[in-house]
């Protein structure tokens, strides 16, 4: 279970392999059961099911870069292995925590978009949770900067909104 997998080099596996093609043109070999976790790949494979040889199929994923895919693939692979066993939720949570703990804010954004596009909802939920956690109790200014949001209120409008709930602005964490 603890064996860390490097997605590109383990070709000895007897599992059927599928090739995914990233937005930047790189081809990545993955086990079929992992590929099936990605909605667009699943749809593509179903549409091309008459193709006899899976090895020959190349699934284009034009919205995800190779860098992001190579983070996602080992995660999904291990997560599949974990959920196949009758393990406690606690173990899955610990695994998710370990995966997300060291993600930079940039990476978090990229992964969220990828998980959303690929329909990996369990990962999307974990990432949204982490994002919520990172902005929880921060100032409005911090939230704007963190999420790249333009303030489109006039100073008067903003002051009025703040005056409606001054108590919500107490106890803000240091940025």
């Amino acid at each position, binding site marked *: 279970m603890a064996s860390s997998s490097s997605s590109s080099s383990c070709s000895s596996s007897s599992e059927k392999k599928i090739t995914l093609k990233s937005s930047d043109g790189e081809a990545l070999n993955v086990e079929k059961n992992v590929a099936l976790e990605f909605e667009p790949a699943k749809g593509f494979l179903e549409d091309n099911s008459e193709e006899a040889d899976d090895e020959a199929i190349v699934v284009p994923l034009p919205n995800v870069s190779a860098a992001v895919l190579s983070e996602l693939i080992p995660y999904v692979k291990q997560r599949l292995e974990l959920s196949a066993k009758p393990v406690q939720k606690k173990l899955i949570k610990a695994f998710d925590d370990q995966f997300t703990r060291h993600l930079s804010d940039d990476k978090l954004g990229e992964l969220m*978009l990828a998980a959303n596009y690929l329909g990996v909802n369990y990962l999307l939920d974990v990432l949204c949770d982490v994002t919520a956690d990172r902005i929880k109790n921060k100032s409005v200014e911090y939230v704007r900067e963190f999420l790249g949001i333009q303030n489109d209120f006039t100073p008067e409008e903003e002051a009025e909104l703040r005056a409606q709930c001054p108590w919500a602005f107490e106890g803000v964490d240091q940025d």
Partner: protein
Amino acid sequence: MRKLNAEMGCLPSEIKFNILSRLPVRMLCRCKSVSKDWLQIISDPYFLKLHQEQSKRNKQLLLLNQGLGDDEDDTRPQFVHFLATSLEKEVHFGLGGFICGYVYMIPSGHDLICLINRGHFHIFSPSFIKGIRLPQAKLSNCLEMDAGFGYIPSQNEYKLVHMFDVNPNPFAYSIKCEILTLTDGATIGADAWKEIKQECPFKVSGWGVLANNKFYWIVSVVCTPCEEKSIVSLDLETETFDFIPHPHYVSYLEGNDMFLVELKGQLCFIDTFAYPPVTDIWVLVDPVRKIWVKEHRIDLTMLQGFDDEQTQVLIHGYENGELVISSQQKSLEFYDTRRKIFRKGEDLNLLWHTGICLYTESFFSLGIVDSGFLRQLTTTLLRLQRTSVVGDVYTAEQIAPDLDFESILFQTTATFQGQCL
């Protein structure tokens, strides 16, 4: 701080909804001033529904420690400390200050929590960290406070029921009943308590539990109830009282520890035997035909630190397939009903007398905002929120190291001279 690039700036709205639905109400109120887009999302009925569902899956805890321990009759000033935390011990806020007399805490099964102090009812919203004092309830000729508090999801209303004895004869009783309804954002008038016509046939013990639009109480032992009439119910629609029997006649033994609780919308009767040490959970599966079914039997000897004489098991809720249980240990226990095993929660440093309430974050607004006592506690303790440890006893200096504690104490004293809490 690292700046988030364009990736985050152009998140599709379903991701924005997903992230925001995980934030606490207080943070969302702050986030309304992030941008027009966010203001619109946070006011969107669909979003509010999503937030509600998310909050229900992620219950929070309000803990209450008081200097008097469990001495309910002591009316001296005591230090009272509230702490809101997640089940995983992520601290949200703490509040503390001096209050005269014991504070009772009644959960609603939803967001709001009812506090009773020296005969006065208060409602506290942990989501908004706001509290209000309710209009004066009727005086009772008996010393105990008898009440019930609950939430009706279909109407988005809270109901508070107060029972009071109008019979001046100490050896007899005539129990009248008044009900107060809390609706979202509505102001509470001085005439908010509505007395109902029918009298409650028996004295009750413990707080009433609301399930399927009825409140239920266990009949007090002073009334020597028969088994068929050991639980009294109050139908909120018809405002009439009725009885339901004890679930299992044989188990109706003296020395058993019994209480009612609402789990998954159903009334449950929790019956703990002294020997063998087991807790039975009976569910009122058919409230009309009054049919109980025993759904679970918990072997208490599996509980870490179980002590035949000392352990008292309290069930606070049912979350994600697990019963949330307190047993006078420093942490809560979670009982997996399917696999029949206990899981120890985070060390919350609970004391044996710590009051424990589960609550669900919500946007239910209390209308009038009390600028008095609870606000005072809020400003004092918000500064502490990150440093406070659950269950610790604070001295005045520790509470407000950089605040003029004298003035806070003075204001607090002035507040409770008039109204206490």
